[in-house]
């Protein structure tokens, strides 16, 4: 930061109050880089003032919601100030009759869900760690979960945003009606913008009525092929599962306490259904029959049990207990390639002696591979093995028109393997957008695609 930290600190303290500013940034390190200041504005207006002050001081900032996606992305090129949105956690307006809610960006998703559930409504977005992930973070990092199969992602549910641009200007995008083509669809620009175009301060989403009935069918198979065949059958059928997850034996083992699988070493295909009693019952019946016809073992969970199963499945994505050595990749491929990509990730990891937990949003083209080196390896050897597998998988995904993104990796690993992969033909346009919005390159500099 060209100008003095002490000066900026005084300025920010005057804006938000001394209690909401700290120089102890250890808990807010991004890829090991510790910010000089952490500031917690209390209103959207304060966010705008804080960002303007940082811009004037040429201080590089990173917005921080629940911190759940901070392991993503490249290490920041610079980091002076972390702007925490934790105090912006209020409901601005809940309009249950129009299936719509507006909240400040720091509101955790879990809290929003509890609130709208009181009126028998829900937001069908279900990323891991719902109690920590904030609405602003969900939007900025485009977080999703198993339910995206039927319900899509943030881009399908966000109706409006308020954003503080890198110079402190406040703008709004969209509104609170479900159809809106009044000017450009600016919501889409900020969804998955990863903090590089400003700070999202308010989010309006549409909601769905709560389904009458919920059920989960678990199909356990000793062979991968059988699981993949049933997956394809479900996809070609009339069934409308809300979620369709494929779990490798390592992931299935981790879920054993919740799912109560009978034997180790099984692949699991898990489908979630919701709707009226008659449609849910019919789908459960149909899937149970498909599982049985391939020699699998089916088990069905209803209502509260079904919800518990999904919470566990959603959270297994990153593997077992936290481990700083772990590398978690998200592979995005055309839907028809999903199961094969899961199998490939297992094979490649095993060949390098890595412990892998691999799951997939099997109907959505997304595979999550959590990789850990064996304990017998040196650090250098472990890094080399992890990098080899990751690069090989990236090549496969890119080869079929997809991508590999690091969701979590130690900083040393990120120094070797690019977090997002190589940018495509539209990168020059993206760069021009970034430059238009953030000419001083102060918002999450370097964290995004191509070091943008």
């Amino acid at each position: 930061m060209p100008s003095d930290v002490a000066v900026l600190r005084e300025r920010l303290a005057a804006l938000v109050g001394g209690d909401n500013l700290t120089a102890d940034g250890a808990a807010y390190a991004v890829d090991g880089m510790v910010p000089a200041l952490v500031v917690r504005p209390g209103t959207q207006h304060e966010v705008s003032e804080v960002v303007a002050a940082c811009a004037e001081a040429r201080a590089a900032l990173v917005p921080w919601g629940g911190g759940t996606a901070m392991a993503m992305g490249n290490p920041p090129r610079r980091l002076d100030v972390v702007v925490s949105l934790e105090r912006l956690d209020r409901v601005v307006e809940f309009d249950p009759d129009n299936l719509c809610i507006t909240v400040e960006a720091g509101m955790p998703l879990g809290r929003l869900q509890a609130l709208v559930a009181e009126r028998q409504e829900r937001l069908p977005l279900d990323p891991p760690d719902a109690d920590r992930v904030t609405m602003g973070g969900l939007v900025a990092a485009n977080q999703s979960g198993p339910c995206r199969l039927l319900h899509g992602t943030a881009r399908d549910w966000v109706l409006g945003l308020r954003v503080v641009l890198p110079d402190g200007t406040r703008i709004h995008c969209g509104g609170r009606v479900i159809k809106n083509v009044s000017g450009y669809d600016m919501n889409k620009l900020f969804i998955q913008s990863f903090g590089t175009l400003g700070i999202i301060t308010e989010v309006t989403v549409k909601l769905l009525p709560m389904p009458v009935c919920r059920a989960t069918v678990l199909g356990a198979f000793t062979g991968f092929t059988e699981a993949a065949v049933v997956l394809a059958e479900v996809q070609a059928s009339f069934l409308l599962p809300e979620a369709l997850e494929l779990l490798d034996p390592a992931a299935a083992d981790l879920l054993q306490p919740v799912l109560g699988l009978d034997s180790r070493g099984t692949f699991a295909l898990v489908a979630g259904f919701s709707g009226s009693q008659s449609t849910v019952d019919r789908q459960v019946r149909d899937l149970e029959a498909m599982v049985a016809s391939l020699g699998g073992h089916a088990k069905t969970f209803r209502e509260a049990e079904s919800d518990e199963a999904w919470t566990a499945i959603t959270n297994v994505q990153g593997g077992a207990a936290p481990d700083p050595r772990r590398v978690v990749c998200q592979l995005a491929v055309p839907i028809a390639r999903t199961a094969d990509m899961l199998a490939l990730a297992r094979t490649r990891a095993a060949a390098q002696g890595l412990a892998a937990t691999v799951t997939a949003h099997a109907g959505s083209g997304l595979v999550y591979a959590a990789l850990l080196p064996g304990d017998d390896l040196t650090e250098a050897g472990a890094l080399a093995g992890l990098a080899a597998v990751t690069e090989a998988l990236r090549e496969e995904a890119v080869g079929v028109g997809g991508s590999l993104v690091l969701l979590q990796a130690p900083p040393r690993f990120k120094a070797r393997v690019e977090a997002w992969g190589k940018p495509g033909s539209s990168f020059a346009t993206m760069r021009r957008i970034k430059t238009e919005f953030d000419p001083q390159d102060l918002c999450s500099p370097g964290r995004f695609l191509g070091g943008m």
Partner: protein
Amino acid sequence: MSNKVLVQELRRVVGEANVIDSDVHLQLYQYDAYLEERRPDAVVFVHSTEEVSRVLKLCHAHGVPSVPRGGGTNLSGGTIPFKGGVVLEMIRMNRLLEVDKGSLRARVQPGMFNLELGQALAPLGYQYLPDPASQKAATLGGNVAENSGGPHCFKYGVTTNHVVGLTVVLSDGEVVELGGMAPDTPGYDLTGVFVGSEGTFGVCTEVVVRIVRQAEGVKTMLAIYDSIEKGSETVSAIVAAGMVPATLEMMDQLVIHAVEKSLACGLPLDCATVLIIEVDGLKDDLEEQTEAIVRLCMEHGAREVRVAKDEAERALLWAGRRGAFGAVARITPSYLVCDGTVPRTTLPLVLKKVAEVGEKYDLKIPNVFHAGDGNLHPLILFDWRDAEQKARVMKAGMEILELCVQLGGTISGEHGVGLEKMDAMHLILSAEDIQAQLKVKRAFDPADLANPGKIFPAAQEVSHAQ
């Protein structure tokens, strides 16, 4: 464009016969479904991404603007070459390039009609969900440019929810790929930003869309009301009961009369309004859902609810709805379609106010609209030869948009801003909001050659000064 050199060069790229610059032909390209007209200097028929790129490189070198044109069904003037220049006729790029059932994607060229894609997918058991009422004549490229809606948005969303990848030629001729067959492409969601950009970011030459299995079953109902208020109250009641029908469409008496006059769909002429309600999905609970909806309609004052017995009856109801704009066009020399959107629960109020606007300006305003989405389409009838009447129509239209905004809505739900609503943008956007949108425009089209003079009020001032 007095630039004969450019026309020569264009002919070398696409062939002699594919460039039109005679007056009589150019007249055909000076209008769309909105009320203004402006003649282009040349029309170029394009056949491939590469050709579009070469044409745009030439235009760029000569500093000449261009506008892509699909079916020309645009209702806000989006296809009118406001600053002259070249119109790119996209209609020959109309092939279905790929259907990947396993990945639930189709790759199409932009000149294909929306309905043609539906007809190509149906025998395979699949469908593309957005279905604007003009689907017979509206192209997919136009749907992308306008982020088109249609009668099934309430459950299934609009075009942007179903477009996952685009090939785009920027105004300098550069070809860029946005999104694609795989989900969550890293970087900014430029696909999402491009959809609805009304041709002002570049020309899309390929579209990757999401396709889905056709629904196992569908039930269509016609609820008949003696009061328009009761009809619109029912819409909210259905949603409040936790139901998500595929369709909640409304037509008032004036529209019903027009439809019956030209299409004879068997709609009752003595009612105030009808609702067309459709539920689809797994067949197991469709009866159940239908019964529940019929009950709700009756509880909320419906005179009668008819359930379509078979596909023929269903098709007849839809022919009436889809043909409504055309039917109204037969009873009036011209009309202005308003496209304001409001929160659903304010529908009874906004309809009353629209009627008041009609009285105030002494204009007939039939209504046919997407009630479930809160997306109004008051059609203000007039005679374009009467300048005084036209002035009243424009005032009434603006007043209706202001109403929508006051009730928490917006100025366009699915028809776009184009030339029509540039002056209404300030109703919903601050100067800062508009500046932010212009940043994106500059990033895509720094030379301002892609459909210039649209959407933003400032752009209009610039063009008037010329």
